[in-house]
Each structure stands twice: as C-alpha cells, then as structure tokens.
C-alpha cells in the first residue's frame, strides 16, 4: 500500500548532467513524456520507465528577454524559446545562436549543455548541424 517517492526531477537533472535528455515511457501505453512524469499523462498508469530522447527539435515560439531576474541580469538580452522535439514533446530552453543568426519559426535546433552549470539549467539549444 505505501508508496515510495519517485524522484522524477532528480532523474531528469541527473540525465542533463550527463548531457542527455530523458523522458518517461509508460509501460502500459508507451506514451513518452518530456519532461518525465511519475504518472502517464495519457492512461494514468504509474508503471513508467525512463528513456533517453533525441536531443533535436524545432523552435515553435520564442522571446528575447531584456528585463531579467537578478540571477540572469548579466545575461540579458537572451533568447528563450519552446522547442518541439522530434517525438512531439516540448521543452523550454535558452537559445544560443551564432552572431547574425536570428531565431525563426521551425528553426531546427539541437541540445547543447552548458559546462559550468548543474542540473536543468545546463540545457541550451543551438542550430542543428546535420
């Protein structure tokens, strides 16, 4: 009867620290969720496992943040967007674009991982190099 706490956030952060993006995969209906979830968003099963997902996607919306919180003031202006992964799941992330490259709808991007940081905030998106 008693449930152990499943540390989903920790699993995600640990994976990011290993330069991987993970999702949860439902053992009952195979639905993948990114970020991972303890309960399947489709069938509510809690039989979930983790799976590493392709770190590529396209940009579906974005903003350039000029007025930032204290911890991000030094980085402003910075580009924040929502990336739709190849499997259709979505993540919010920072875009790091080469000088002169502007964000655009459906721009293909891939994940990069900031070296100096820890956990979820390491994730960056850069233009996809085929």
């Amino acid at each position, binding site marked *: 009867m008693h449930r152990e706490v499943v540390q989903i*956030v920790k699993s*995600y*952060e640990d994976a990011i620290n290993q330069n991987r993006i993970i999702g949860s995969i439902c053992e009952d209906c195979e639905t993948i969720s990114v*970020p991972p979830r303890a309960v399947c968003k489709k069938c509510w099963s809690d039989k979930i496992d983790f799976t590493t997902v392709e770190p590529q996607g396209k940009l*579906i*919306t*974005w*903003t*350039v*943040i*000029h*007025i*930032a*919180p*204290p*911890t*991000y*003031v030094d*980085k402003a*202006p*910075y580009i*924040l*967007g*929502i990336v739709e992964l190849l499997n259709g799941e*979505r*993540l*919010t*992330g*920072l875009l790091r674009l080469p000088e002169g490259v502007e964000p655009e*709808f459906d721009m293909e991007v891939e994940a990069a991982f900031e070296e100096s940081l820890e*956990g*979820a*905030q390491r*994730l960056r998106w850069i233009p996809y190099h085929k």
Partner: protein
Amino acid sequence: MREVGIVGVGMTKFGVLGRVTSRELATTAAREAMEMANIKREDVDAIYNGILSPDIFEHQMHSAPGIPDYLGLNNIPSTRVEAACASGGLAVMQGIISVASGLYDTVVATGSEKMTNLPTSHVTEALAMCADDVYEVSLGITFPGAFAMVARAHERKYGTNAEMRAAVAVKNHKHGLHNPLAQFQKEITIEKAMNSLMIADPLTLYDCSPITDGAAAVVIVPWEKAKKMDGPKMKVSSFAQASDTMSLHDRPDITGFKTTQVAARKAFERANLKVTDIDFVEVHDCFTIAELVALEDIGFFEKGKAGSATLAGDTTRGGYIPVNISGGLKSKGHPIGATGVSQVVEVFKQLNGMAGQRQLKDVNYGMTQNLGGSGSTIVCHIFERGD
C-alpha cells in the same frame, strides 16, 4: 448551495504607496467594504485573504490572521489563499463557497499586495516563481517572457500584431482616466506604446501592467439576507476555477488558455447564461496579449478576432462588449493579490450605478476573469444586478 450576494466593496488607491504593510492596506479596504455593507462588526464570521507573497515582498508569512487582528475582530477564522495573480479572485471564490455552504453568514474577502518595496528585477524574479521552477524559472523565464511566447505563437497563427496589442493598452489607459483609484490617469497613443522600452520581445513596456501596491475587499452574505438589506448589492450568478500544467510547454496549444475556456464554460453553465448575456467584463490584462486571448477564450470573439475587434473599438465603452472599464490591470495597476478582488469591486460599482464618470448604462450582468501564472489558474465569476 445557498445563493450568495455581495453587499459592500472597498478598495484603496492603487499605486506606489510608501511605507505601509499589505496588512494595513487589506484592513483599510475591508473597513470600507464593511461600512458600505452597513454590517455590524461582530457579525463578521470569517475572512479570506488573497495575496501572492508577503513572504518575499514583506518578510511576512501567515498574513491572514493579521487582518482580523488589525480590525479588532477577535478570534474569527482568517484564511490565506494563493494562486499567483489569481489569488484575489480565488479568495472571493472561497469566501463565496464558505457562505454558500451555510457555514458562515458574513464573510469579508480581501486581496492585497505590497510590491514596491523591492527593486524591479527582484519583483520580476518573484513573479517568475509562479512558473515551473525546474523547467522554466531555472532557465531564466520571466512573466513578460512567457506571455511574449504566447503573443508570438498567436501572431503566427492569427496575425495578431503589435498594433492590436498596443490598442489594448491605449483603450485601457483611456478607461483608467475616469478611475480615481487607478495607478495611472493618463492617455497614451498607439505609437508611444509600440515604441516603448522592449521588455520581452515582442512585448514592450506598455504591453505590461505596472508594479503596484493596493488592496480591495468585498462583503459576502447569503442572498436571502442581502435582499433584506437597504444598500447596494449584487447577486453571485456563478463562479468557476480551473487549473492547467505549470509549464507553458506542456500544453498542446499556447495561443489560448484552456483554463479560461473551461472556467468560463462552467461559469456560464452554472449561471444558465450565454456569453451574449454578459454586458461588460473585467479580464486579466497583465499583458495586452492576455486580454485578447481572454476575450477569445471566454467566447466574446472567435479565436484570432479579438485583436482586430479591439482596433475597431468593439471593447471600449459603448462598443460591442466593454472590457476593463476600470482601466484593467494595465492602467488601474496590478497589486497581485488585490487584482482579482478589484475586478469584483468594479463589477459591483457598475451594477449599482456607483462608477462615477465611467458608469456604463443599462448593465445587468458583469463577468470577471482572473489569471494566475501562465494561465495555470483561472477564476471566473458572473454577477447580476441585485434590484
């Protein structure tokens, strides 16, 4: 559930109010509301307080008991609710539920916030904390940023552009001219709005509501009791609350808020009303795009049509549906916890002919839509004339 009514409202000046606590502000608004309702102080059974974060803004938790304390109302229940920028609407709703249940006969619902103690970047951070800390905030999201992403998605799909958004700001500033309690009483132009400081591209300074101190309060009683009272009153036709994912990216469609759609539909069903029955509405224009999206999600306009309708003047006084006659968050100001309560205050004043220079004519039904986070909480209310 019993039918419920509102029989008094109060609201402080909204603005930059100096050395004063949210508790003093809430107490002031509550006293005004109780005086208008002409209720005996010993008749107050309970208090609800909507407030975002006295923790961060004032180094004070457990804000609710402080209000009956300052009112001299000893030992009555006082409950804080928090739902980001929807905290005030939710306090009103919990107050309504507690009276509708039969538990209490007289409840004062208050909303309050004292924000201007902190510098802007710290306020930006505090508000951002209403988004998902792990998947959004740790990456540097801000609330203007979240709504900017909504605005860009909406623009892509429906062509809702900067001029349409600016038209919301211009209209709400114009409405606010006639609200003496609003933070701003000044007209702006489309050009000025479009060329103002970039906050989170494509949203500029004039797309954003300001940082504000203030409080508002309402007195809630059973409708049977309200009917016997001499003063101004309105009936609660219905209320509804909905939630959605914390992270914007977890929703299939970000050109609207499903929470507004769900809450508004429930509110209409419970009141047995249609959107065309509503004479005016106070929606949550924390950002100009939020007003447009709200009007579409409630159903005043088809998806994608609110921008051009606003440009055409359909949402102003005398238009198809007067929206944010109070000035909205944009011009009235946005003291977070107070905002949802102040929307109810405006509906009350309009339905009772107490809105002074901004009084609308022949209004029978008024609606409010109060939003928290990036739409993760929505609270809607519908009210009707009490006479």
